[in-house]
C-alpha cells in the first residue's frame, strides 16, 4: 500500500529536495454559481513549513540531511516524528537485522518503518531478500525505498500524524538541478554573487 502511496507522492515531488507541496486549486464556475466570485484562486501549502506537523527532511545531500527545524544532520539518521538520532552504519551494506534491532523493541511499535538505503537500485533486491524473514518475524511494517523516496514518504506520513520511523543513509550520488543550486546559494546569502 505504502509503495503506491509514495509513488503518487513522487508526482508532486519533482526536485531532488524533500519539500512537499500540496496544492488545492479552487476556481469559480461562472455558469454554475451565477455570480462573479473572483479570479481563480490557487493556494499552495508547503508541508515542511507548516508548524506542528513534526520533523521533516527539507533536503538531502551526499553528506547528510537538512531538517525543517533549520539544522543539518551529518551522516545516516534514525528519524522519529519529533526526534532524531544518529544511525551508526558505514554504508548500505550495514543495513541488517543487527543495525535495525532498536526498532523491533520499541514500544509502541512504529506504524511504519521506512528504510532509505541510498540510491543503488540493484541493492534493493538483495536487501529485500535479507529483510524478508526479519519483517515477518518481528511483525514490522517495513518499507524499503531509495533515500529520495524514503524522504518524501516519511514527510507525508509524519504530516498525517502517524508514528513513522525512518532509518536513512545519504545517497552516494545525487542529481541536482539549477533550482537546488539557487536554493543553496540563497541559503548562504550568495545568490547574487559571482562564483569565486
Amino acid at each position, binding site marked *: 500500500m505504502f509503495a503506491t502511496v509514495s509513488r503518487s507522492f513522487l508526482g508532486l515531488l519533482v526536485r531532488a529536495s524533500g519539500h512537499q507541496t500540496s496544492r488545492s486549486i479552487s476556481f469559480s464556475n461562472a455558469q454554475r454559481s451565477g455570480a462573479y466570485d473572483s479570479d481563480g484562486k490557487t493556494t499552495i501549502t508547503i508541508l515542511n513549513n507548516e508548524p506542528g506537523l*513534526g520533523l521533516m527532511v527539507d533536503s538531502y545531500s551526499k553528506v547528510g540531511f537538512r531538517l525543517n*527545524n533549520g539544522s543539518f*544532520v551529518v551522516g545516516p539518521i534514525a528519524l522519529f516524528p*519529533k526526534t532524531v538520532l*544518529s544511525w551508526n552504519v558505514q554504508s548500505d551494506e550495514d543495513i541488517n537485522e543487527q543495525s535495525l*534491532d*532498536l526498532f523491533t523493541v*520499541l*514500544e*509502541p511499535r512504529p506504524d511504519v518503518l521506512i528504510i532509505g538505503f541510498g540510491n543503488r537500485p540493484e541493492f534493493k533486491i538483495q536487501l529485500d531478500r535479507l529483510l524478508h524473514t526479519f519483517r515477518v518475524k518481528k511483525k514490522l511494517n517495513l518499507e524499503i525505498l531509495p533515500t529520495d523516496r524514503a524522504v518524501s514518504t516519511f514527510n507525508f506520513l509524519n504530516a498525517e500524524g502517524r508514528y513513522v520511523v525512518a532509518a536513512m543513509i545519504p545517497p552516494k550520488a545525487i542529481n541536482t538541478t539549477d533550482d537546488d543550486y539557487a536554493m543553496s546559494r540563497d541559503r548562504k546569502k550568495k545568490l547574487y554573487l559571482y562564483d569565486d
Partner: protein
Amino acid sequence: MGMVTSRIHRAAGRFNVENRAERVLAKSKPEAAPKHPTTEKYLQELWKDNESKESLTKKNQQLDGFLKDVYVTSHDPPSIKNPKFGKPSERDRMPQFRGTVEDTELGYAESEVVAEGKLTLRQTMQLLADFKTDSQKNDAAAVVAKYKIQASTADNILTYFGSLNVMINEPKDRQEKLLQKQVPKPSTVVEIEEGIPKK
C-alpha cells in the same frame, strides 16, 4: 410461433376473470380445498378410533397443569465492563473522549505500560545519553540490568545508535545571536522542538 400460442393461452386464462373473482368473494364462507386421498383415508381411520378421538377433543388436565406452573421472568443483561469482549454495537465501545487530542511531546501517544524486553523512545534517548556521558558505567550490561532487554539488543543499540553532537556557528551579528538562543543548547540528545525557528 410459440410466442403467439402463449399469448392466446394467457388471454384465455384471463377470460371473464373479474366476474369469477367477484363470485368467489361474494360467498360468506370460503370453500376448503379438497384433501388428498391419502390424508382423507388417514383422517377417517383416526376418527374411527375412540381413544384418539377423545384425546383430540378433550382438554389434557396434566399438560394444562404444567403450563400453569411455568412462570417467565426477564431482566436486562449486565453491562459489559471490558469493552474488548463486548459486541461492537455495545455502548461501552463508543468513544468516551470527544475533545481535541493534544499534541504530544514526541509526536505520538506513548504507552503507559511497557512490556518486559521492550523500550520506549524516551528510554532509548536516555540510555544513549547516559552512554555518552559515561560509557564505562552505562555499558550494555548496565542497560540490560536497568531496562530488562536482551543483551544482544542492548549491544546492538549502543553500537548502531547514538545521540547527535550539536555544533552552532559563531553568531555574526546581534540578530543571529538572539536567534540562536532559541536553539537548544548542545546536549547529548537533540530533541527537536516542533516548528521552525522564527525569523
